[in-house]
Structures are given as structure tokens and as C-alpha cells.
């Protein structure tokens, strides 16, 4: 299911307290994000597992909601 993506490190300063959430599950991500293009939009996930969830659940669900 995983397409071409890449791991991107999260670079923070010592004073940084804002934590990056996953675009799919909302979980905070400590050190690196899985960056991948989905339907022409760049998304940042905590894992390839979340990319799969996004493609197989979130996207179809949104399409269905739009259709109705």
C-alpha cells in the first residue's frame, strides 16, 4: 500500500514545546515523520501504518461524505 515517501527528521530547538501530530491519527511524533503525497497533497504521518489507514479508511470516507 505504501507509495514513495520519505522519513523527515523533526528538528527542534531546546526551547521548542510544540509537538507535531500525525495527519491521520493525531498522535504526537517524537523524532521523524513519514512524508508522502496522497492525491496531490503532502501528508505527514507517524508511520507507514498510518499512511495505509489514511488511504484505506480516511480518504474513502471523505469521498463518501462529499458524494452525499
Amino acid at each position, binding site marked *: 500500500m505504501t507509495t514513495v515517501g520519505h522519513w523527515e527528521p523533526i528538528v527542534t530547538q531546546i526551547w521548542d514545546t510544540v509537538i507535531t*501530530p500525525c495527519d491521520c491519527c*493525531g498522535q*504526537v511524533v*517524537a*523524532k521523524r515523520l513519514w512524508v508522502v503525497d496522497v492525491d496531490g497533497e503532502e501528508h505527514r504521518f507517524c508511520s507507514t501504518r498510518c499512511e495505509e*489507514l489514511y488511504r484505506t479508511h480516511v480518504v474513502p470516507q471523505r469521498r463518501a461524505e462529499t458524494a452525499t
Partner: protein
Amino acid sequence: MAAQDRTAEGIGDGIDPVLLGIINNNFVNICREMGITMTRTAFSPIFNEGLDFSCVLFDRHGNMIGQAEFCPAQLAASLFIVRWTVEELGVDSFEPGDVVLHNDPYRGGAHIPEHSVIRPVFHGGELWGFVANVGHLAEIGGKAVGSFAADATEVFQEGLRIPPVKIVSRDENNLDLWRLIMANHRTPRNTWGDLNAQIGSLRVAERRLLELLDRYGAEFVSQAAEELMDYSERWMRAEIAAIPDGSYEFTDWMEDDGVVDEPVKFHVTVTIDGDRMIVDWTGSSPQVRGPINATYGVTSGAVYNAVFHVTDSSIPKNSGAYRPIHIIAPPGTVTNVVYPGPSVGGNTETHPKLVDMVTGALAPVMRDRVAAAEGASACNFLFGGVHPKTGDYYANYHLEGCGWGAKDYDDGNDCTIVVNGNCRNTPVEIFETRYPLETVEYSLIADSGGAGRHRGGLGTRRIMRVGAGAEVTASALFDRTKGEFRAWGLEGGLPGGYGAILVKRNGDTEFRTFPEVYGTVSASKFTNILLKEGDEIMLDAPGGGGFGDPLERDRDAVARDVAEGIVSPEAARDVYGWDG
């Protein structure tokens, strides 16, 4: 299929199933022994009486491989806490004898009072795994005594926030860090004792784990842990696959957030898609100002908690069991607080409601496994001050048991701590020997269990009086005290009784609400109210919802409830149609 059949069939392309069972029991019992160490050595009643802590084992990759009968909320949060800590610090940063401390709610934690200590376990010079203990320290500073500020609007008011840091390096205490922490807590001696109890439990676990690795070999135990996780995953997938495919929704509310007197909405959609479950909290209220926001760890923990309630309890509880369960919690909502939003009440008041919502959503397709809603309030009562007899400063965090929801096959439990806690309340003797509070009454509340074919569990009433010469600074964080926010019933069962926290000032003749007496915004959530000698406080815990039509309740059961004072004769007649 019986549990034994699953075990025999499901385990085992590799290691002998009996041996796998032995390894799994070793993991569980190491956690149990950690817990015994904790209760026997901690200073505070919240640990040695309340059991508000959890002990867990992890492999070197941050997968949970063992846990025991501790707090479901902490057990789930530990999945995120340990993984976060290992990722943030880097696996290579751990050395033998290190202990990392962490209580950051934005880094996987459940809420700020819960302090995790994590120790790496090395075998033959190689990192094998981690042992961890998550415990709720009763006092960690912040604006409220007992560090449960019900009117907090930022995390900074909730206590001292600690990112993952080494509090012990190669078995040497980092005393500068200890001093900094204890300078910010109101009861530093307890902090010293309780954190050392947690750390001591890690040493016990390390010793036992090393014995296991010596006996069976590190590689073999690692393989066994992997197989156990795969086995748990297969079993959980089979359980989920047995639920009819579809999307099931549920909405519930909290009466207010402690800061703004408005109801807060929670919404969930549970999707069963073959052998995976997706639990999506989209549609819940945006993050609120008050501290009932849930962290991602809390929301995930609530989902896992609910799923474990409706699936086979024999599934070994390790990371494998969690794999088929996917959670979507949009950041910036009440189900996934973002910095610097407050969240201390999310773990106690929100978690149990989220659990009930997941099971409530599944009720139409799992009626024989779900329960009506529970009281779903930990009835948090925090208090502190200078003890008039000793001159020492004290602080305590108290939980009260509420009624649990009835099921299709039985009444709900009476007087049981919320489903996320697995904790115990503080005994009367502890209140009266350690704190200047005399117990006037402690009883079950008649008619607080939601009526039904099976009755909801009863809530409790506790009345305490401030002792001679004492002043007590009190805070509270309750819910289900008004409006339509009582514990809901199922299939015609009625809602449970209201909770309440009331005060009768010395010389008054009746109990009144805190808004009436002190002008607080919320009747159930307030901070730092000064109670004086002779003042009395009443804590009423809410009851659980009923299941089924009350008119269908067994007549002997109604008669027994009346005889025992659980149901009043009036309710028996009017609600149950009893003419005895």
C-alpha cells in the same frame, strides 16, 4: 471456542505453547512483584491504599510485552510514553543503571500527575528491554493543593512538567534534578519516598527479568515475546472479525469543563472493517478551556479499555493485542489536547465516558457483552494543609467509587472506582489517622442505581467533618451532578443517580452547593476552597445506568433490594411496579 482451545490452536508455529505460557506468566508475575514492592514501600496512601500506579515490561523496540492487573489508563499510556522516551532520547543514550523520569502529557502521558520511571535492562552487555512504572504522584505543585486544578486553563497551573530526563544515571541519583523537583512540590518528603518506591520496583523487575534471561537465554525470551505478541494480534483480529462489519456511532456529554458552564460534546464512530477496528473521535467538541481535555494517551487508553471489555479476557495483554485497533483523535479537540491546554481531569472524568461511548456504540451488535454507562466520575477530592497535631504539611488525592452500569445478565457493581482506574478508595482509618478529617457517614445511596431488568450499581455517600483546630484547602473535580448528564441506561434501563459535592459550614443546618456558598462557576469542579473546623463536606458518587425494562425485573430481586435498603419502597412501587 473455549479459551483453552484457542490457546492450543493459536499458539505455536515455533516455541512449545506450554513454554510460551510459562514465559508469559513470568512477564505478568514480574509486573505483579513490582506492584507489591510499590505498595509496601511507597509513602503516600494513593499508592499503598489507592493502587494508582502500573508496572509494565517492554522489549528494546518499545513494544509492551507484559503487564498485570493495574490501571488500564496508565497501561495504555505507557505504550506511548516508553516509545516516545526511547525515540526522543535515542536508544543508544541508555546505560545500565539509568532511570528516566517523564510526566509530560503532550509526550504520550495521560495527565501531568502521572510520573513514569523507565529503566533499561542490559543482558550480556546488550540492551534487552525496558521496565517501567507509571504512578500518580499525589502532589506535584501547581495552583491547587493536590495538583488537580479543576479551573486550570493551562498546563502550567497543573503542576511541574517534566520531559524525559535521567533522574538516575548509572545508579547514581541526579540530586540537582531531585532538588529542583522537590522544591516545586508541596509535600517533597512524599515525592522522595514515592518516586524511590517506583524506582525500587524497577530494580526488582530488572533482577527478575535477568533471572529469566539467564535461565532461558536472551534470544529465546525475545523470540517468545515476539510470538506472544503475534498470538495476541491473531486472537484480537479474530475477536474483531466476529463483530458485524459496519460503522456504529455514539454521542455523550460532560456537564461542564470547570471553567465555562456549558456542556461538552464527545462523538465517536466505531468502524468494523474485517479484522480491524477504527475508532474515530471526529465530531467531538474543540478543545475546551478547562482541564477535562483528554490527551492522545487517554483517548487511546479508553478505546483499548473498551475493546478489552468486550473481547475475550484471556488474550495476553501485550502490544500485539493493540495492533488491529486504530484510533483517530483530531488534535485540538477534547479527545486530543494540544499544548498548552490543560488535561488533568481528562484522565479521570473523560476516560470513563469514552470507554462507555465505544461500548455504547457497539451495543446494537454486542448486547451480551456491553454494559450501560457507569457513574464515570472519579469524584476527585483533593485536600491539604498543615496538620494541627503534627505541624506538618500534608496533601492527599482521594477517589470515590461510583456505580457501574448493569448488563444483560447481571446488576452493575456498587461503589467501584471508575473503569480506567482499577484503584481503591482511601479507607476511613487513613483519613482519620493521617489527616484532620473525621468521617461522619459512609454509605450506599438508595435508589442511585439506574432502574432496570438489571439494576445499575449504587453510588456512595461520604460525609467528613474538619477536625479541631484544622483548616483544610479542598479542590474537587466531579461530573454527572446535574441536568441530563446522568449515566445512561440501555434497552429501556433508566439512568443512574446524580453525583454531588456539597458543603455544610459550621453552624449551618443544611448542605448547599459550592456555587451557593463560595460562588464557584461549577458545582462539580472547583479549586482551593478553605474549609474550617466543624465544616462538613458531602461526597455523593453517581450511580450506574440500568439495563432493560424495570417492570421485567425479577420480583424476588426487587423485594431483596427493598429489604436491604438499596431501593426505596416508593421507587419499588412507582418504577418497578412492585406491589409486595
